[in-house]
């Protein structure tokens, strides 16, 4: 009876409610199509083997049901060729799947060089976003259509995860580190942003919307509203306020190295290793200054941890980055 109830309930659900359920989320980025193709191939493989196993079991169940208690089934020795075949087939499938998915993954992980960078700071339980032009948003992200966007992300507290199902992109947002993801939206519209990594009480409310706009609309949106200072300008202001400027003098006469022309180039550190001056390194220099000292400079820089928040760190980085394009004035 219970079963009948369940069945009819299931049927009515199927009939009445199944129709409006989409079988796939909106596909609104260049990444989505590739992922979906792989996904549906995998679905096909799953269905194929599930159907084979289920139907074989059902067939055997009926064909070889016990007809009398005394029947003695034949002794069937193992069949080595058969074992080899059904070891080889899954191996081959896995091999193909690995290369297919790895290739797609690397493509999807590698941002195009010409990406527009937007900065994300996750915080219990909201998203702070900053455009290089200085516009700041909370839980909303406006992006232009058909433009590669790279998000550089960090967290103020616990691990979060920036997830846009419609773009098939997701990446954890960690405290103390920068992670990044990129996408290129292909359809105008409004799509969900979710936090995909459990982050505490308000986890389910840490959601937002991404608005994909025509580039012209985007430009209008960006310039609309009050006039903003760009991230680099805000960084420059901080650079002065915090007193960085007293040591990091432009002509390289201060106690610290000049930051002009530094960004994006390899530097040999005092520890002997050579590292590219990137976001991670600049952040490290602000938070753990002694761990990335350049040779010929004393380890005298104080840490700024706790004095500035992650958004301000990002502004400082934007400023250092803007100095990176200028010509270096010797050592």
């Amino acid at each position, binding site marked *: 009876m219970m079963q009948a109830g369940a069945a009819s309930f299931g049927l009515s659900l199927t009939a009445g409610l199944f129709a409006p359920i989409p079988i796939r989320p909106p596909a609104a980025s260049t990444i989505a199509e590739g992922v979906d193709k792989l*996904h549906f191939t995998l679905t096909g*493989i*799953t269905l194929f083997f599930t159907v084979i196993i289920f139907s074989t079991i059902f067939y*055997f169940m009926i064909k070889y049901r016990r007809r009398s208690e005394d029947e*003695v089934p034949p002794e069937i020795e193992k069949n080595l060729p058969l*074992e080899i075949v059904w070891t080889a087939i899954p191996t081959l499938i896995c091999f193909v799947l*690995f290369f297919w*998915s790895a290739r797609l993954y690397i493509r*999807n992980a590698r941002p195009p060089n010409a990406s527009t960078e937007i900065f994300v700071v996750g915080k219990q339980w909201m998203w702070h976003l900053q455009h290089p032009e200085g516009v700041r948003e909370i839980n909303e992200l406006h992006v232009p259509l058909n433009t590669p966007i790279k998000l550089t992300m960090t967290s103020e507290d616990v691990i979060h995860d920036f997830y846009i199902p419609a773009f098939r992109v997701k990446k954890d947002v960690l405290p103390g*580190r920068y992670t990044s993801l990129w996408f290129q939206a292909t359809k105008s519209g409004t799509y969900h942003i979710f936090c995909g990594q459990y982050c505490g009480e308000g986890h389910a409310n840490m959601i937002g919307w991404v608005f994909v706009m025509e580039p012209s609309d985007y430009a209008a949106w960006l310039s609309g509203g009050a006039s903003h200072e760009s991230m680099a300008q805000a960084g420059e202001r901080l650079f002065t306020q915090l007193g960085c400027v007293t040591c990091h003098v432009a002509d390289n006469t201060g106690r610290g190295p000049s930051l002009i022309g530094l960004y994006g180039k390899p530097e040999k550190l005092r520890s002997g290793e050579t590292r590219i001056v990137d976001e991670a390194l600049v952040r490290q220099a602000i938070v753990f200054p002694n761990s990335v000292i350049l040779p010929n400079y004393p380890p005298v820089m104080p840490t700024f941890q706790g004095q500035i928040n992650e958004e301000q760190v990002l502004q400082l980085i934007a400023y250092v980055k803007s100095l990176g394009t200028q010509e270096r004035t010797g050592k």
Partner: protein
Amino acid sequence: MSTAVADIHEVPAESRVNYLNASYGIKSWLFTTDHKRIALLYLASITFMFFIGGAAAVLMRIHLIEPQGALVQPETYNKLFSMHGVVMVFFFLVPSIPATLGNFLVPMMIGARDLAFPKLNLISWYIYITGAIFTLYAMISGGVDTGWTFYTPFSSLYSQTHVIATALGVFITGFSSILTGLNFIVTIHKMRAPGMTWFRLPLFIWAMYATSVIFILGTPVVAIAIFLVGLERIFHVGIFDPAVGGDPLLFQHLFWFYSHPAVYIMILPAMGVISELVTCFSKKRIFGYSIVAFSSMAIAIISFLVWGHHMFVTGQSVYAGLIFSALSFLVAIPSAIKVFNWTSTLYRGSISYEAPMLYALGFIGLFTMGGLTGLFLASLATDVHLNGTYFIVAHFHYIMVGGAVMGYLGGIHFWWPKITGRLYPDAWARFAALVVFVGFNLTFFPQFMLGYLGMPRRYAVYPDEFQVLNVMSSAGASILGVGYLIPLIYLVWSMRYGPAAGPNPWGARGLEWETPSPPPTENFEEIPVVTEEAYNYTGARQTAG
């Protein structure tokens, strides 16, 4: 099969001294060193924990009927799923088959009088109980909201709940697993009856052996990881705190180094059970014995190489991601081989459909689906989209509930007559097996779709468009819940009112079926001498005939 055949079979169970009536009183149970009694102590305790974890699941499914949450505050919901995960993983699934059926059957199947270290075995149970008490205390006094994964720095610095007590519970229970695994390995190596060579062992023993390897090599690592979280939480010393130079991902590495193999702690024993059931109810030798045995060992070893697939989107490097993806695909192969061999065992068999067989066939189907959906998660590109969504939830429930719990229930039904000496009503049992199968699929299949549509897991509230599938899932869960209650009722009933089972109600092969039901304390009058391979269903009939 052995020389230990006596006319004890004709003596009615009640008048014979067996392990159940050898002594009476609560002390005779709490201080027993008999592996069979300890198995029953475990059975009672893990059943209790199962229904606690199940209650949490019921509340969650009710809550999720409404997008804005039908039942509780998000804070409480977070505690519910954490409690569900902690209890089900550490206190039910990990000890389920090894501690109950394993404890009961390992010595009997290999022809030994007990495990190698009976006192250690009892201590394991007390350790388990101590861990359970800490965890239950944490729940009663306000709960924990970190999820069963205890990800730092949330668990170590931000959560306001009873993380320490829960972590301590999990830490302590780990030692129970370690000691059980140690006991099994020594027993299987050193205490096999004369003639019981490695390739005459029932496949259940191979599975228990593989599981034990994971127990002893994996569990210490999660213990230390959780210990470090505790230290970090108490002293704020920065082990996993990036503000002081710690790396939160390191915790995830240490955690998954155990917790991925732990999935195989759950599924390998179930696979062992299925090998026993499929052979018995189709009256055939297993197809490809050595291949099934080796695939168990292969799974145990490879399971330690794949943990990074839990971390494809957590900021692990692309390079490590590639390595872990390739290794993760490897584990699919021995699993597929097992499924093919079980299916082939049915070929030209003499198949009957008692309840344990229904569970076994259900297992094969559900495990196939669970395993194949694992390919989506080993694939880097699709994992990025599916990781952390309901797709994951559905996938691991197909493995852990559709696989491990089906195997556990199948095994309990199969050996129940041996354990208690009583038969349960088979019609009810078959009905319950069907209800569980149907309820399970209705609960978890919609979750695959939810996940692909992008619904993240651990959401107390969710956007409206996901409601239909959530309602379907909750409806299925109510059926599944009933499916689990029915066996509880008739199995308890059968302990008192069930007809006597006799030593071998299924006509099964194996040393455990050659002693009376319930077995005497010493298991065997005389240690049997084994002269033939396992599952000799066809040959046996000729010699006995």
